[in-house]
């Protein structure tokens, strides 16, 4: 019986890296404090493996054959993919993978009725894994990583209730299938409000973001599902905001727990609301 020792949710807006120096003090402080706190909590929890759920942004699959989830089982994950390098403007990074955990996750979720893809070769990573990695120095932490790329943006995609269900199945795999004593961390990477490539590219929905951070921090999944619906996400920004569904998977896995957040900024040039949560899983 493995155990969940860490759980957090963060956004991955590339501009928090590329435009960090140009941002006003208050916006920089939120980025620094959020990712700083997440990084410290991660190191303090000493996970052997970190499972990261994050939107794939159409980076690995054509729109005509788009999977809901892809588990990466490579020995090593590296990024950003060439096309994204200049856009994100971050350093190259590499993370050790965990093929056996990836494989167990695929087998265990399949047996529990959740369709996943398994990719043994290299996956292409964009801001989804790159931004949290460089902002928390995850690539310096010596933690094995299993990325689970998620469809949050190509309709029809799994909704909030389904993502909580996927999360509960992930928890069952961790509890029942992974080796005893293994320490597992969970990270949801995505959101908050943004509309990448849409007509409201510069709009940020602060009201949605603050409500979401509040609901995500409370041990009340019914309230989360009631207030943070897909229509409300789309109202806050089509094709981007629904990335908060990656946090739903983590929430489903840990159950109803309290979380702490570290401020919020809606500085428009980040083109995305910024705030994060670390949940109490002790």
């Amino acid at each position, binding site marked *: 019986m493995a155990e969940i020792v860490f759980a957090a949710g963060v956004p991955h807006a590339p501009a928090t890296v590329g435009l960090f120096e140009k941002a006003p003090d208050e916006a920089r402080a939120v980025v620094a404090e959020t990712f700083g706190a997440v990084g410290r909590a991660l190191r303090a929890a000493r996970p052997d493996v970190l499972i990261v759920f994050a939107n794939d942004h159409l*980076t690995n699959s054509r729109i*005509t054959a788009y999977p809901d989830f892809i588990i990466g089982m490579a020995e090593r994950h590296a990024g950003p993919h060439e096309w994204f390098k200049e856009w994100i403007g971050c350093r190259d990074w590499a993370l050790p993978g965990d093929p056996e955990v990836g494989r167990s996750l695929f087998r265990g979720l399949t047996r529990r009725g959740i369709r996943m893809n398994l990719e043994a070769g290299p996956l292409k990573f964009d801001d989804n894994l790159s931004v949290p990695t460089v902002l928390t120095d995850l690539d310096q932490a010596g933690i094995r990583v299993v990325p689970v790329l998620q469809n949050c943006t190509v309709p029809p995609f799994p909704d909030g209730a389904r993502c909580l269900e996927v999360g509960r199945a992930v928890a069952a795999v961790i509890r029942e299938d992974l080796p005893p004593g293994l320490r597992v961390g969970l990270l949801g990477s995505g959101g908050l409000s943004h*509309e990448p*490539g*849409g*007509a409201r590219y*510069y709009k940020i929905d602060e009201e949605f973001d603050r409500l979401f951070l509040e609901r995500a921090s409370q041990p009340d999944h019914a309230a989360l599902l009631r207030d943070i619906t897909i229509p409300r996400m*789309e109202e806050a920004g089509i094709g981007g905001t629904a990335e908060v569904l990656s946090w739903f998977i983590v929430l489903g896995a840990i159950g109803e727990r309290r979380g702490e957040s570290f401020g919020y900024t809606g500085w428009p040039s980040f083109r995305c609301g910024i705030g994060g949560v670390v949940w109490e899983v002790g």
Partner: protein
Amino acid sequence: MAWDRYDPSLAAHDLVQDLKWDPALRAQFKQNEASVLDRYPHMRPEERQAIERRDFRALYDLGMHPYLGGQLSRFIWGNDAGRGAIEASNRLVASLQGHAGGIPDKP
């Protein structure tokens, strides 16, 4: 814009994926755009015309996914983290909102 016009069967989506995954095709597009567009037999004439005219409003009305539309705009107008991507998103938003400049909708 919402998902009601979304049409995942547009060949323009494949074009953006191929550009993203193939640097040689990107170079070819910059040199001879027509020769690249010719590779997509399922691309409709109106789809092709919208790409040629950089008319993202028309492309989105035909059903293009905005995420791939954003990537196409950056490929055309600038993809770097600083000035280029900002220029690209300004021009994209201007096209989508039907006028030639400025950044509306700032909160």
